[in-house]
């Protein structure tokens, strides 16, 4: 009874309740990690191992999935393969064991590069514009300020497909369809709402007195902003940038509908990595791993700012 009655006092939980809590939480974490660990493992399986029954926990690791992810191959006769002479590289050798020959690089590297270009481009723009707007909203009397902020937020209520219809038509007219620039502008607009809300919270936390003192010292408003406020926003800007980057990195609906060849990012590409006879699961898993790993790392780096980012700055601590 005494253990239970102190159960909700902060820092006073009994050892036994702590143990039970630890076991349950760690149990959940481990179960929740199974899908990710499994996908990570599948990337190192051979295609037959990836569809074995019962599912193989222990297997001979191979880089076939990764090789298949980055190359295109064609099936050849034994005679033809022998006529090529001995394989030049380890990946040639790996592919030839399946009676295949590498015919060229796959498009995954291009898609990945697009993800990086569009992700960083839109993040830079959104954070740059967002910082200015956040400062403006935080420090000046802007008519209809509350309405504007709500308006910025409400743009997130549209289903992406609904936004994609007119954007599709607009981009077709402007020649922005399937271009990195078009996608950068679009992601910037979507990310701006998040960026402005988050950054405004960070500016609000910086005391005005600093700038006022700077202005008294003869700084102009711009200088006060640039030399006093901006340096103090550094960590807030970094956190906001990572959130914008993750959004652009993960985005799928616009990329699916508005890009096809040139500017396609990785998310619409990974599901269509086809091998012989259906999806090439080890290659899909390898692509998934390569794609998700940066986000996992950023999540760990960002863990203390996470709450703020995912609630549009509504909750700060």
């Amino acid at each position, binding site marked *: 009874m005494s253990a*239970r009655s102190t159960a*909700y006092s*902060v*820092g006073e939980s009994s050892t036994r309740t702590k143990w039970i809590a*630890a076991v*349950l*939480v760690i149990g*959940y974490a481990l179960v*929740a990690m*199974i899908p990710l660990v499994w996908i990570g493992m*599948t990337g190192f399986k051979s295609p037959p191992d990836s569809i*074995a029954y019962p599912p193989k926990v222990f297997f001979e690791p191979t880089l076939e999935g990764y090789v298949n992810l980055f190359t295109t191959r064609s099936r050849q006769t034994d005679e033809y393969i022998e006529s090529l002479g001995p394989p030049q590289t380890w990946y040639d050798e790996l592919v030839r064991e399946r009676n295949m020959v590498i015919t060229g690089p796959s498009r995954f590297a291009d898609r990945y590069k697009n993800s990086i270009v569009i992700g960083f481009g839109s993040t830079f723009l959104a954070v740059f*514009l967002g910082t*200015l*707007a956040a400062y*403006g909203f935080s420090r000046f*009397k*802007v008519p209809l300020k509350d309405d504007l902020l709500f308006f*910025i937020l409400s743009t997130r*209520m*549209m289903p*992406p*497909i*609904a936004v*994609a*219809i*007119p*954007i599709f*038509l607009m981009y077709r007219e402007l020649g922005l369809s399937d271009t990195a620039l078009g996608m950068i502008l679009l992601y*910037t*607009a979507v990310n*701006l709402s998040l960026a*402005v809300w988050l950054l405004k919270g960070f500016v609000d936390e910086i005391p005005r007195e600093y700038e006022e003192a700077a202005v008294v010292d003869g700084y*102009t*408003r*711009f*200088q006060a902003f640039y030399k006093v406020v901006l340096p103090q926003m550094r960590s807030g800007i970094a956190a906001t940038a990572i959130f914008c980057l993750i959004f652009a990195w*993960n985005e*799928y*609906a616009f990329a699916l509908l508005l890009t096809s060849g040139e500017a396609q990012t990785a*998310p619409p590409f990974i*599901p269509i990595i086809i091998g012989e006879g259906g*999806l090439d699961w080890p290659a*899909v*898993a390898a692509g*998934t791993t390569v*794609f*998700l790993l940066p*986000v996992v790392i*950023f*999540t*760990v780096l960002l*863990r203390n700012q*996470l*709450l703020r980012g*995912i*609630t*549009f700055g509504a*909750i700060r*601590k």
Partner: protein
Amino acid sequence: MSGGAMESVADAAARATPKRMAGRLRGLSDRAIAWLFISPTIVLLLAINIFPLLWTVYLSFTNYRANQPGREVKWIGTRNYERLLGSEDVWGYMQATAHFLVWTMVLQVVIGLGLALLINRGFRTSGFWTTVILIPMMLSPAVVGTFWTYLYQPQTGIFSYIINTFAEVGALNMIGSVSLAPWAIVIVDTWMWTPYIMLLCLAGLRSIPPYLYEAAEIDRANALQKFWYITLPRILPFLMLAVLFRGIENFKMFDMVVELTSGGPGSTTELASINLKREAFEKWRTGYASAFAVILFVTVFGLASIYVKALNRVRS
């Protein structure tokens, strides 16, 4: 770079300002700076959010088809809306969406709140495990949907295998079966987003001052009473905010489900957004799809507004 450019603009502005007018102009230039800072954002949002929105509203009253740009566009009044609201299929998509929305929210609130309460006991290494639990929600939903189709394979998938080690139910065809597919998407969403609810509940729990529990202790309140009268009211605003954000997202749900089931089998998991994509980008009924988009937007907006009112009442 950009900062330097701004500075020089500022210097130029300062130099151009006669000293005797400086006092008056400082107020003015503040306003100029405000607009200079805010207008790019407003312009971009107008161009890429508001203008398209108005265009969608216009298109929703026409018979426009985006795959036939040369065809004459006819104003057909509210016929698209009449067709939509009278359609039993659309009602079916809304029901599928509601099923998904309600069950994901219920499961995530129960599990997320439970986890938050457990983590709040503050055992050693709880910080590390919290971070581990948070990982799924940061991942790309479309890629998550893709790899879950692999985990859900009826014969060779790990999901069915693990379930069968606990209960002999035979191969589970999570994606292909009419009765299981709606739950397949609920499970993946719950896996992915329970951490979100958990994180907000944790924030709520940390906002409760310990003296409240100490006071309750003196009043000999039991654990259940403390939860009901102290913990729950204090975390309710956080929980409701979490449900608001997740609710809006799940109402719009597209990417994860489209990759996982693409609306099938039949149309059992055809959520509103998935059907919207079919109408707009496969059947190319742009006008009709625009009307559907407007209806969805109004629905989200209406529901969210009502909800925010309730949220504000809880907060005050």
